[in-house]
């Protein structure tokens, strides 16, 4: 106490008139960033393929603000599943839409963050537009460093408004989604850290897929019809560990448990190994496994007794598993000039989605199996 008084007295005597206020250190990065990514996604059997171009930029403003913008263009073409039916032999078969014309999606996001000494606030919003689908969202988040920055709390909330005006129909339907995230990141020791995030989501409105149908044996086809509400809970835990003796390699392990009130439970495991080689080259093999059981109202085909008022044969609500992985290569250059940092990245991943990969499922057959691959290449520059 008395020490404090003496300190403040001597401080007053030493005060530098009109000079500096105490500097704060919230924002770690003070560079202008420009990132561009090209991606190609393709499914097996001449199904959908997508070309993706993503451009992002961020800039520091004043001492504490950072403005970020992001623009995505997706060019989609190919067929997609509409429903399943039984052939003459009683075998279930998947019926695809005719190969569609090329469709375009544009999405833009902007966000502003403000860094204080221990707290960073973020506000953002964005839009996504397709000829038959419009979506807009707002989000806000807070990240709070505690405990000498060993612990970080993350809280965020977002709300989205979607509208679909299906081609060939004369109506527009909408849905509203809310999502809340609560997370903690904890430094465990000099070599490891863990993060645990929970998200709670609530959707209401038109949650059906206007382009999907269900096949009713002896009763033709009906439109996909899902409940008007959905509550989802996801719990993701991420662990990262550094290995000094293996040239500073790092292991990343993610696990997510998911449950919703449509009767779906899902598990996801992802493992990545980042191995630095020489001269800032890093090679990263990765592996991902996902499994889910089917929604309460899912069936591959229905009959007049069980079709009910709520029903779907969407392959995404079926029971299945996805197994896959790939490799990513990164190279970075650190410079001391106008350009501070350049990073080049390229990745290839392949995934196999099969009904038989589901844990504890009764394999419904191979009629909706497919595989897909993704290739990406990107350049990140810091000024």
């Amino acid at each position: 106490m008395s020490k404090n008084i003496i300190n403040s007295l001597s401080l007053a005597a030493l005060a530098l008139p009109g000079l500096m206020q105490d500097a704060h250190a919230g924002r770690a990065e003070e560079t202008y960033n420009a990132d561009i990514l090209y991606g190609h996604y393709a499914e097996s059997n001449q199904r959908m393929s997508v070309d993706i171009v993503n451009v992002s930029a961020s800039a520091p403003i004043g001492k504490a603000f950072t403005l970020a913008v992001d623009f995505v263009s997706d060019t989609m073409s190919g067929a997609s599943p509409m429903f399943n039916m039984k052939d003459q032999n009683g075998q279930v078969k998947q019926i695809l839409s005719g190969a569609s014309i090329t469709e375009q999606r544009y999405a833009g996001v902007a966000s502003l963050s403000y860094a204080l000494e221990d707290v960073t606030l973020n506000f953002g919003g964005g839009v996504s537009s397709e000829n038959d689908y419009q979506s807009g969202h707002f989000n806000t988040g807070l990240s709070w460093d505690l405990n000498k920055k060993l612990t970080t709390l993350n809280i965020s909330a977002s709300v989205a408004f979607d509208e679909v005006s299906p081609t060939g129909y004369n109506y527009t339907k909408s849905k509203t989604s809310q999502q809340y995230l609560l997370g903690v990141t904890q430094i465990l020791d000099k070599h490891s850290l863990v993060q645990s995030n929970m998200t709670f989501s609530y959707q209401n409105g038109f949650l059906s897929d206007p382009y999907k149908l269900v096949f009713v044996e002896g009763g033709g086809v009906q439109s996909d019809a899902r409940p008007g509400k959905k509550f989802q809970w996801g719990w993701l835990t991420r662990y990262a560990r550094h290995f000094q003796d293996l040239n500073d390699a790092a292991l990343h392990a993610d696990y997510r448990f998911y449950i919703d009130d449509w009767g779906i439970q899902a598990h996801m495991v992802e493992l990545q190994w980042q191995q630095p080689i020489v001269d800032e080259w890093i090679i990263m093999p990765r592996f991902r496994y996902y499994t889910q059981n089917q929604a309460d109202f899912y069936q591959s085909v229905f009959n007049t007794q069980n079709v009910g008022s709520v029903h779907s044969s969407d392959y995404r609500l079926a029971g299945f598993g996805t197994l896959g992985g790939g490799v990513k290569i990164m190279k970075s250059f650190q410079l001391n000039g106008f350009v501070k940092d350049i990073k080049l990245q390229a990745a290839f991943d392949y995934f196999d989605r099969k009904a038989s990969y589901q844990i504890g499922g009764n394999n419904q057959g191979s009629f909706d199996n497919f595989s897909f691959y993704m290739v990406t290449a990107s350049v990140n520059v810091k000024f």
Partner: protein
Amino acid sequence: MKFLHANALAIAFTLGLSTSSAQALEKGEVAPDFSLPSLSSAQQMTNLSQYRGKVIYLDFWASWCAPCRTSFPLLETLYRQYKDQGFMIVAVNMDENPKAAHRFLKTYPASFDILRDAEGQWADRYGIETMPTSFIIDKKGVIRHIHNGFAKADIADIETTVKHLLAEK
């Protein structure tokens, strides 16, 4: 959701109490004298008191610290501008592996003195809570300013302070 929040706060509180470290230094205190080896040669020891009579910018930094990439080129310019008037920059490196520090200095060359505090003994004594943290010390050895972190715009304030202290007797 509510109970989780309460938990998180309780934990933060508990840990906040349990990890409080050595008393941080404050403005107006005399900068504790240390003796540290230079980064390039472990045999060559330097005492802070050797610089007495100069205005010192004492910087605790590491190669992995992002704001340090901003600060080094600006500090080098500042040093070249005022060294003849009795200004000195003493940068204490905190890297676990000195190789990383040498690699950093290849990209961001510095002509001021680089020391090394491998055990973190002096970073602890100076109560470092952010990387980088710097102390502006006057000719009499008194800490006149403590600077946490580093943003580009900070260099103007630092220059004003240094000029002011150089003008003091």
